[in-house]
């Protein structure tokens, strides 16, 4: 480029003809962006999806929510279905008998227990192996089907009896079995055992089975004078019978019982109950955290926006409330309101009473930070009302933190709820409603013998907590603009 010495030219006297418009025949536009604009949420989404851990947590969370919402469809049971016969059945799936998740348990037991299990058809075929002899008793090791209950004495009405006879003839399946003759012994200890319909064979004084020469048990079926087996005797109009309960159950219900996660002390399906408990926990968690967030926003916004005396008074109130341990509030509300309002509203109220304080102080800080800024002043000058400034201009700054704290509040609520119902401070067990904590408490009593009762609720709540916390942390990082570009 040539250097023009300004002194050589006289700029003060340029005539109009000397001037020429440079871009005479073109319109000038700003150049269009070739990239798409990235808004706040889009940016958060991009950073969230980059974080593998939280994406996995989100997927797991979705699966758990789907389990709670849709799980009961896959199960024929209701939470209130009880059957004392089927208490503490082990988890069983549709995949058949392969030693894993099929409702069987490996057992090493002395002769008398083995013959008892054998007599009630509970021993899985081909699983028996002879063990050592301990203190004179032969031990056997075998798998036993926890769903097989064997024989029971029952009292059938004439209609029921007819139905059983008809079913036997149609299907060719035996349900009625001969009654027992206990007249061969006078030993009271043995006679007591014969109240159990599964002891259909002779016992010796140590309650071991008496075996014949071929090693088989000796049945003690009741016979009439002509030597026929006796299948019933009349009790009024009713029939006293000895039936194969497993077959009888199939006859009545159309299929054998099956509990995916096993059954508890009252023979209730743990799978279905876990779904309902999870539902209650999740709904409670979401509702409580939404209410708390809304309350916190309103309280914090008023505090922060108006400041001064309003702020001082409101801060002192929340200062006092925050010092009350939530455990005490929750307990007190249960004692007070559970009988009149029901346990869930009482729980909800106690959670809501102090739960909003954290959010409120966070919102208050945001307001102190933004309320003196120029753009707020501009909005006020333009005539915006207080409400508009609060909700339209200042609050959106905090939306990321609010969403994050909303999500992170849910696991806290679920944890507290399950703890309280575990400690029996809150009793959520009523009707079709149950709680994970109640299930855990029921499982605690049989932790040693039937660990499956506690295992599934414990696994569920642990995974739920981990997933929620991971997801919440991922969200927090994603919504934090100061972390933009830090990762790489």
């Amino acid at each position, binding site marked *: 480029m040539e250097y023009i010495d300004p002194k050589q030219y006289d700029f003060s006297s340029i005539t109009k003809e000397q001037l020429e418009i440079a871009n005479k025949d073109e319109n000038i536009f700003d150049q269009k962006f070739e990239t798409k604009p990235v808004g706040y949420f889009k940016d958060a989404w991009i950073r969230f999806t980059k974080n593998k851990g939280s994406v996995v947590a989100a997927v797991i969370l979705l699966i758990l929510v789907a389990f709670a919402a849709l799980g009961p469809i896959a199960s024929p049971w209701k939470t209130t279905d009880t059957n004392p016969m089927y208490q503490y059945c082990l988890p069983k799936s549709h995949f058949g008998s392969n030693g894993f998740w099929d409702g069987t348990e490996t057992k090493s037991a002395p002769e008398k227990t083995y013959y008892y299990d054998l007599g009630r058809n509970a021993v899985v075929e081909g699983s028996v192996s002879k063990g050592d002899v301990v203190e004179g008793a032969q031990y056997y090791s075998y798998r036993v089907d926890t769903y097989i209950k064997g024989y029971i004495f029952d009292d059938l009405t004439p209609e029921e009896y007819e139905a059983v006879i008809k079913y036997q003839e149609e299907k060719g399946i035996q349900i009625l079995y001969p009654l027992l003759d206990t007249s061969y012994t006078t030993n009271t200890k043995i006679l007591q055992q014969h109240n159990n319909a599964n002891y259909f064979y002779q016992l010796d004084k140590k309650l071991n089975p008496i075996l014949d020469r071929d090693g088989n048990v000796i049945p003690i079926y009741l016979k009439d004078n002509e030597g026929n087996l006796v299948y019933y005797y009349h009790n009024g109009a009713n029939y006293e019978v000895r039936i194969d309960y497993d077959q009888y159950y199939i006859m009545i219900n159309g299929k054998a019982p099956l509990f995916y996660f096993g059954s508890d002390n009252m023979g209730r399906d743990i799978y279905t109950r876990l779904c309902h408990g999870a539902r209650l926990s999740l709904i409670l968690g979401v509702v409580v955290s939404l209410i708390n967030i809304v309350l916190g926003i309103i309280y914090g916004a008023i505090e922060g926006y108006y400041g001064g005396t309003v702020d001082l008074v409101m801060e002192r109130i929340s*200062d*006092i409330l925050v*010092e*009350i*341990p939530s*455990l*005490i509030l929750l*307990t*007190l509300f249960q*004692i*007070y309101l559970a009988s009149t309002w029901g346990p869930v509203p009482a729980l909800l109220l106690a959670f809501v009473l102090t739960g909003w304080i954290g959010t409120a102080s966070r919102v208050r800080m945001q307001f102190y930070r933004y309320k003196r800024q120029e753009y707020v002043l501009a909005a006020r000058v333009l005539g915006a009302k207080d409400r508009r400034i609060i909700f339209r201009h200042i609050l959106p700054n905090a939306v990321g933190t609010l969403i994050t704290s909303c999500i992170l509040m849910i*696991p806290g609520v679920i*944890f507290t709820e*399950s*703890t309280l119902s*575990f*400690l*029996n*401070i809150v009793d959520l067990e009523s009707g079709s409603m149950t709680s994970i904590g109640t299930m*855990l408490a029921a499982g*605690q009593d049989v*932790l*040693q013998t039937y*660990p499956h009762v*506690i295992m599934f609720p*414990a696994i569920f*709540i*642990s995974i739920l*907590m*981990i997933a*929620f*916390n*991971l997801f919440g942390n991922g969200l927090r990082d994603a919504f934090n603009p100061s972390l933009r570009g830090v990762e790489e």
Partner: protein
Amino acid sequence: MGKYVIKRILLMFVTGFIIMTMLFMMIRLMPVETPTPPDMPVDYVANLRKAYGYDEPLLVQYWIFLKGLFTEFDWGLATKAGGSAYTPVTQVCLEKLPATMYVNLFSIIISIPIGLGLGIFAALKKNKWQDQVISILVMVAISVPGFVVAFLLQYFFSFKLGWFDFQMAATSRYGWFSWKTISSVILPVLSLSFGSIAGFTRYTRAELTEVLTSEFMALARAKGLTRTQATIHHALRNSMVPIFPMIIGEFISIMSGSLIVEQIFGIPGIGSVYLQSINVRDYNVFLFLSMFYVAIGLVAGLLVDLSYGFVDPRIRMGGGKA
């Protein structure tokens, strides 16, 4: 500083008093049940109700309660909880305190060094695989509820392996420091510790990584200190500023204990009395223990705040703007 401390202490008492008033009113709106034990004189209970004003209006009851409280530290009598009826509430509750403190003290003794150690290690190995492993473990330990940890420990170590008792041994029989007692509290101590180890680790790592990236660390290296020297003398010391108050807070809350762990492992501590007072509706005990928990919270909060000033003189509490 002195003025600030006095102000804070006064504020603490005011807060405590307001909470106590609210709790008292709410609790005494329910009738105090006074069952008559068979071996007591007939008019004993009637006199007792009169002395404590259980049948008077609420405000009169509160006046009687306050008078008793400030003159003789009388919190009333336990009506149902604590085995024998009509022993002073303070006696029923405080005799359970040692068991709670015993278990929690063990837990603190192991969780502080382990937590700090892991946190320091993770911070020094930041973003390497050791750090990743530790942060995953911390995440799991913080998320998994304490009762699940307790069940796992109880199932494997006392039921399956049979190494430890599944309930705490009776101290009246075995004493506090016999091997029997100590081995029976190993599992509850472990289940208490997981959470606090994780908490300490996370906090220490966060603080130390922040200090390690600060400019005076670069200066320390520039003037010729080795990495170890710089870390020990400059970084660790500075990162302790926020961690030390946390430790103080932990020490005070050893008295409050854990309801869950006490329930699962049968520890005869404060938590078990609290649960009992709820189950049998012994409101005097409930009020005392509630206030006990509130007081621990208040004192811990106060000491934590004040200790910031002691640890780091740059942090001036209270005072004016300058």
